[in-house]
């Protein structure tokens, strides 16, 4: 059997999976559409909850890629065949044989301009969390006029939990990210006042709640419960925010020098047709089962990892990539068994997880091709 595995997407999930598969002894080809590995994370500064440098994470995962063939600046244009004999054709015209395929194509940041009332792309001082992160990395948080801001409002749930932009889901990481960048701003500009405008605070992971508390207790970050309704620009470039302060049940007006939109994640489903993958109503890939088969697609031999299947934190994406590696290893192991038969009872959990029943046994026993 061809022992090559194609991993599509060189973000943290794809890299983590590729590294682990290599460790298991498989040949791995990693296809990345950009010229550098690292996906979204490579652009970031520090990550929550422990302020690890994003570059450190990328370097660590890159270090595990020894012996792996990485194809940069390439996308997948066609997938032929069935497991374990796929043929993957890239935009560079290359044909790669694959026993299995892992789709780890990540997410796209929500386009903040779609929330017109927040004035992104119209008001100079309405920026996204991604732009703020870049400013923090340069230690140059400043308004459009080049001054350090004295008052910043951070808007939670931009592009998340919002039917108006067709995203009903929670992006999960923005709350903790807000708390993290708020602390970073306070460290770089101590006298800057920060107001976080939230609906709920969803800081669920280990160390996240503690980070939230620290931002309040040690850094005096203020939290105002209310969703921004609209921002207006004043002549001096500052922004007038209108919202309800739901804790006092009164309308509130608040002027800030800078508005930071904490943009959520949007599914990247570029491969839906090419890999014949199903997409959920949230526009992330559907997995074989939400509970116990989160790395399997409904298509035999094609696996999923990372934010391709829904918003995840970095640590979760890495774990998910490695979990996918284990699933792939187990899947390929089944083909190496001497007498491939219907008796897969020892792997019942895997067999039964496939939606629509046991797909191995739907067809009569086939002689082993190996």
């Amino acid at each position, binding site marked *: 059997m061809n022992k090559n595995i194609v991993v599509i997407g060189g973000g943290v999930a794809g890299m983590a999976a590729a590294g682990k598969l290599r460790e298991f002894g498989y040949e791995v080809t990693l296809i990345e559409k950009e010229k550098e590995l690292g996906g979204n994370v490579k652009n970031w500064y520090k990550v929550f909850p422990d302020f690890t440098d994003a570059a450190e994470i990328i370097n660590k995962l890159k270090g595990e890629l020894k012996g792996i063939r990485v194809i940069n600046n390439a996308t997948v244009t066609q997938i032929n065949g069935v497991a374990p004999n796929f043929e993957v054709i890239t935009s560079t015209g290359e044909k790669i044989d694959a026993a299995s395929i892992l789709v780890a194509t990540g997410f796209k940041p929500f386009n903040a301009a779609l929330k017109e009332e927040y004035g992104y792309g119209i008001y100079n001082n309405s920026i996204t969390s991604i732009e703020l992160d870049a400013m923090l990395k340069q230690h140059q948080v400043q308004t459009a006029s080049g001054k350090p801001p004295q008052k910043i409002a951070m808007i939670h749930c931009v592009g998340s939990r919002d039917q108006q932009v067709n995203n009903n889901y929670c992006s999960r990481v923005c709350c903790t990210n807000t708390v993290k960048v708020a602390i970073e701003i306070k460290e770089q500009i101590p006298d800057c*006042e920060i107001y976080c405008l939230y609906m709920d605070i969803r800081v669920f992971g280990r160390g996240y709640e503690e980070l939230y*508390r620290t931002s*309040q*207790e040690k850094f005096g970050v*203020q*939290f105002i419960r209310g969703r921004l309704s609209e921002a207006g620009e004043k002549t001096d470039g500052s922004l007038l925010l209108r919202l309800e302060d739901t804790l*006092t049940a*009164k*309308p509130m*007006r608040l002027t800030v020098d800078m508005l930071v939109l904490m943009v959520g994640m949007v599914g990247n489903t570029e491969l839906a047709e090419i890999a014949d993958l199903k997409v959920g109503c949230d526009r992330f890939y559907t997995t074989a089962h939400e509970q116990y088969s989160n790395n399997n697609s409904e298509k035999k031999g094609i696996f999923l990892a990372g934010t391709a299947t829904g918003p995840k934190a970095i640590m979760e994406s890495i774990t998910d990539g490695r979990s996918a590696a284990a699933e792939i290893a187990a899947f390929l192991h089944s083909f190496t068994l001497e007498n491939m038969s219907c008796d897969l009872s020892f792997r019942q959990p895997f067999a039964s997880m496939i939606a629509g029943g046991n797909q191995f046994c739907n067809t009569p026993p086939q002689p082993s091709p190996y």
Partner: protein
Amino acid sequence: MVKKKCFFGIKTDRQVDGDKMNAKLSQEVLAQGGENAAINACMQCGTCSGGCPNAERMDLLPRSLVLMVQRGEWEKVLKSQTLWLCSSCHTCTSRCPRGVRPTDVIEAVKAIAIREGIKNDSVRFNQIFVELIEKRGILFEPELMLKYGGLKALVDQAELGIKLTLKGKLSPFPPKVKEPKKFSEALTKAVKK
């Protein structure tokens, strides 16, 4: 809060002017009450208000009081009846999931309110109470009742007073510490600081 009318006749206290938010009051509370009066960690969950035995009588629930302190709403906080309805039962303090101590916060706010000239029966009572302790070091209740309620209180409480005297519980001689002068001077000096 002054009820100014703005252009369209909407009273200003019907909306929150976010631009007036500032940390001065919470800093003042911290200076008065020490670390135990720190409120930054509050996450507005309302556990304090939920357990408060007098919440239904308060104009500002303990949770809101903390929020108003955080935002620097001096007038709302200092004029609130909540300060004087708190019976220091520590239910809130023993339940706060973030370690905030509303009892200590309210205590500090009361002291600030008194300093800022807030006047009511509770303030008067508390001030007389402390004055009398400063005087002799030990409380002499008949004197407290006389000073607070005047002769009327003495008459109203006469029956209770007589009963207590008959039971040997009321001495006509006020007790005091050994050196009341020194005791008193040290405390007076501390307030003036």
